[in-house]
């Protein structure tokens, strides 16, 4: 699921650098906010692919590492506002895990800023657009992931 959402393209094939950012969004708030942003016809960078989770607390460290290993330039994790998680404190668990992954990335020499957590309510469509814009800017400044792989190599592996 995750790997098929990431199609690496070498920068030379593109005009403006096209980024691959994966966003893990909780069903109750972040995904709804993203949906609202769509209903409101808000404009924001197209670099994000959304993966819906029932709760940000379902986020597994392996999901984030897997995304980065397969060439994602960045990973966003979006959950409910702190204190308002639909499942009490799933968003706090996600926050802890994002912090843990950032520490792991620092250890291996990948920029920890490639992973970032955002909080929003389902009514905050504008906030979703802002979050994606901020993430896009942040990743663009870092450049494409050094772990990007050519599309044909991924295809050969059946991804």
């Amino acid at each position, binding site marked *: 699921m995750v790997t098929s959402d990431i199609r690496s393209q070498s920068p030379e094939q593109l005009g403006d650098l096209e980024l691959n950012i994966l966003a893990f969004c909780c069903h109750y708030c972040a995904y709804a906010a993203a949906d609202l942003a769509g209903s409101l016809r808000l404009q924001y960078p197209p670099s994000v692919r959304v993966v819906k989770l029932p709760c940000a607390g379902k986020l597994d460290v*392996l999901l984030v590492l897997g995304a980065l*290993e397969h060439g994602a330039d960045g990973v966003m994790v979006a959950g409910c506002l702190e204190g308002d998680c639909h499942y009490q404190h799933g968003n706090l668990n996600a926050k802890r895990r994002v912090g843990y992954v950032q520490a*792991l990335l620092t250890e*291996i*020499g990948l920029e920890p800023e490639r992973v970032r957590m955002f909080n929003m309510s389902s009514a905050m469509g504008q906030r979703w657009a802002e979050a994606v814009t901020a993430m896009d800017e942040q990743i663009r400044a870092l450049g494409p992931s*050094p772990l990007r792989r050519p599309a044909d190599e991924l295809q050969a592996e059946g991804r």
Partner: protein
Amino acid sequence: MIVAEQKPLGEIKGLLGEARKVLIVGCGTCVTVCFAGGEREASVLGSLLRMSSRLDGAPTTVTDVTVQRQCEWEYLDAIRERVADADVVLSLGCGVGVQALAEHYPEPVVVPGLNTKFMGLPLEQGVWAERCAACGECMLGLTGGICPIARCSKQLLNGPCGGSSHGKCEINPEIDCAWQLIYDKLQAQGRLNLIMEIIPAKDWRTSRDGGPRTIVREDLKLPKPATAEA
């Protein structure tokens, strides 16, 4: 349970050296419970090593497999092909597991990914404390269930030293004075008379001091086949 901690990533990479195919072997028992070497930890470490090796310019094939318990031959039998395929086997078992792997598969290089620390228990999620020193002659019946060998910094047998202060140990103020705990426990249970029994100097021969220990249970040993298999 045995409590262990994962070695720093830099140290693990050093142990793997120039290996191009690494097999990480996790263990589903103690090190799973202390979040050091279970299936999840093996997968995470695998991902980190793959990414790290690519960033270093020397991509390494790293796969992982986790067995129920790394210290038993039967469980290790199941991963024979996986081991044969690897340059180096990185064991995430405790010291026993690493040695069992190395003994069962003498050809490949087997390296440890964990530092085995102690026998203890989880006080709360994320906090483990030492409780047993495997001294070989348990005296918990005399001390209200609190071990003076594992929990007293000086392994005293007959009450606290002069350094016990407000229930804390003079070696490290974060350590509870074991004899204070023993006293409080026996008093609460109305069994303070036990503390008056003098425990003589310990015979450490039943502990590690007597050399590596072996236990043989003749009643459990299986009979050997009458004729040797061809």
